[in-house]
């Protein structure tokens, strides 16, 4: 049972029937978009586009605003963006990274569960050897969802775990190898280097890999997610975002700014703490929720 006891306004509150399009309305629209974490710049850009279209008489009434914005935002994400890459032969390697506590390990459990339910053979690699009980956490998940885990002791070299995991994935003829990594802030240079090293190991063991590099972004994150996306991409070429924790009242509008500025697509969303609480990213639904 969820409540929507929010301080922040929603767009449907603002766009009452027959309301005139004027500066007041645009101000309120600005509030809604900013409250959804789209950020100042992206919000201003959308409002400017709206203002233009109004001037050019492409839209005339306030009822047209939501469809207008929906169309604009939805077009940010073409279908091809959302598919998970697949290797031509051998295991598809999915490297998962992100800042501390964003939801990486849980999202891996969800993704692993999703893929194995679809009949694929999945192996997970416990490359977070740093955080207390991180290995235990992934071990419990691997048992629950019934996939194999490759792990070393806490404190081991994560690149060595990645190496073993690649070898195991090949030996077991796995379809997917999903690599969990320790949470790290994008500002920590040495930890970003460590991530590059993990990536280099998989590329070497399984040429062409990693096929996907997923950045897990906490859906409640604000503008800092832009810096996260930028720095992680700079280090390991992020191919897609897993937007976690969208089951709360935050809308995750930051991914619009990320798409706008860095052109990184969203692949999945996380909607709870259970393995089945995962969905492919649907721009329609996402935008719908943004304005509900």
């Amino acid at each position, binding site marked *: 049972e*969820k409540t929507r006891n929010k301080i*922040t306004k929603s767009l449907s509150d603002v766009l009452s029937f027959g309301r005139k399009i004027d500066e007041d309305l645009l101000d309120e629209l600005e509030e809604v978009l900013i*409250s959804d974490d789209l950020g100042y710049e992206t919000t201003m850009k959308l409002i400017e586009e709206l203002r233009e279209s109004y001037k050019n008489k492409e839209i005339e009434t306030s009822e047209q605003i939501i469809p207008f914005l929906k169309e604009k935002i939805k077009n940010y994400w073409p279908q091809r963006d959302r598919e998970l890459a697949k290797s031509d032969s051998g295991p598809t390697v999915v490297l998962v990274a992100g800042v501390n506590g964003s939801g990486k390990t849980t999202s891996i459990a969800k993704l692993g569960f999703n893929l194995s339910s679809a009949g694929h053979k999945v192996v997970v690699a416990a490359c977070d050897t740093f955080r207390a009980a991180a290995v235990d956490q992934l071990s419990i998940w691997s048992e629950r969802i019934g996939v194999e885990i490759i792990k070393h002791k806490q404190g081991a070299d994560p690149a060595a775990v990645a190496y073993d995991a690649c070898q195991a994935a090949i030996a077991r003829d796995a379809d997917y190898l999903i690599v969990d990594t320790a949470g790290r802030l994008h500002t920590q240079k040495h930890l970003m280097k460590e991530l590059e090293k993990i990536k280099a190991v998989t590329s070497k063991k399984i040429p062409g890999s990693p096929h996907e590099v997923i950045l897990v972004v906490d859906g*409640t994150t604000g503008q800092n997610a832009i*810096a996260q996306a930028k720095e992680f991409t700079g280090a390991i070429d992020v191919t897609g975002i897993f937007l976690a924790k969208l089951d709360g009242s935050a809308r995750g509008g930051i991914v619009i700014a990320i798409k706008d500025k860095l052109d990184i697509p969203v692949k999945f969303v996380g909607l709870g703490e259970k393995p089945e609480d995962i969905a492919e990213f649907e721009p329609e639904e996402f935008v719908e929720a943004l304005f509900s």
Partner: protein
Amino acid sequence: MFESLTDRFNSVFKSLSGRGRITESNISDAMREVRKALLEADVNYQVAKQFCKDVREAALGAEVVQSLKPGQVLIKIVQDELTKLMGPEGSDIYYVSPGPTVIMLAGLQGCGKTTTAAKLANYVRSEGKKPQMVAVDLQRPAAIEQLRTLGEQIDVPVYCEESKDSVKVAKNGLKDAKKNDADVVILDTAGRLHVDQELMDEVSNVAKATSPHQIYLVCDSMTGQDAVNSAKEFNERLELDGVILTKLDGDARGGAALSVKAVTGKPIKFAGVGEKIEDLQKFHPDRMAGRILGMGDVVSLVEKA
């Protein structure tokens, strides 16, 4: 990524200082920059709006006394107001006697509760107290193991039991702490969304059963606009005593600090600045103000102006 506010202020204030006084018209440009800076720092829209309104009034009042360098006056007002709003400074933990003092941590998933529990335990011990931790998170896989590992690292006992009943575990943990003569008991609770009624009921039941002397909301400094909604709900359900801001070692501007302070009115006690046990600091409102504004060292800027 962000154009620094210092640069923007400088150009706005350059045009201001030539004119000699703060007026309705010339304050507008500057306040637009302030508002933009706050929004880019994730200060909630409404909170930013109210803040700008207050500063504007304060600034217009200051016009008569100080008329030579309005830019200088304004930037000082902005900084002071922000510092005031995030204060008072004070990380003192209120210990009861006879003990044990019960401290409960709560917050959204992944915000840093478990890590902070260990940091706090380490901190209270440095104040000469004997801490104990209780693993009340029965939800997250390996949550107990995580707390136990951290407890071992710092040599602080952790009470835990296999159970599904968090109220029972918390009560037993308290009993155990009394038996051990602990001065401070820290309860690590499961992460939960403020919109999840079932889990919010659970945490408030734990609070009712253990009557903590202090309940702290742990808040990730990277949180966006929604911080007001979660903080408000946690405060209503738990009557918070304070806030602990985590992950300030990154480059998040941390506007959530202002938002949370504004909606709860509760002091920000500590700042988490890393993953290691010793990475816990006292919270400094003035530094946080500079950080939110993205201006680094505001004081030297004012002196230069």
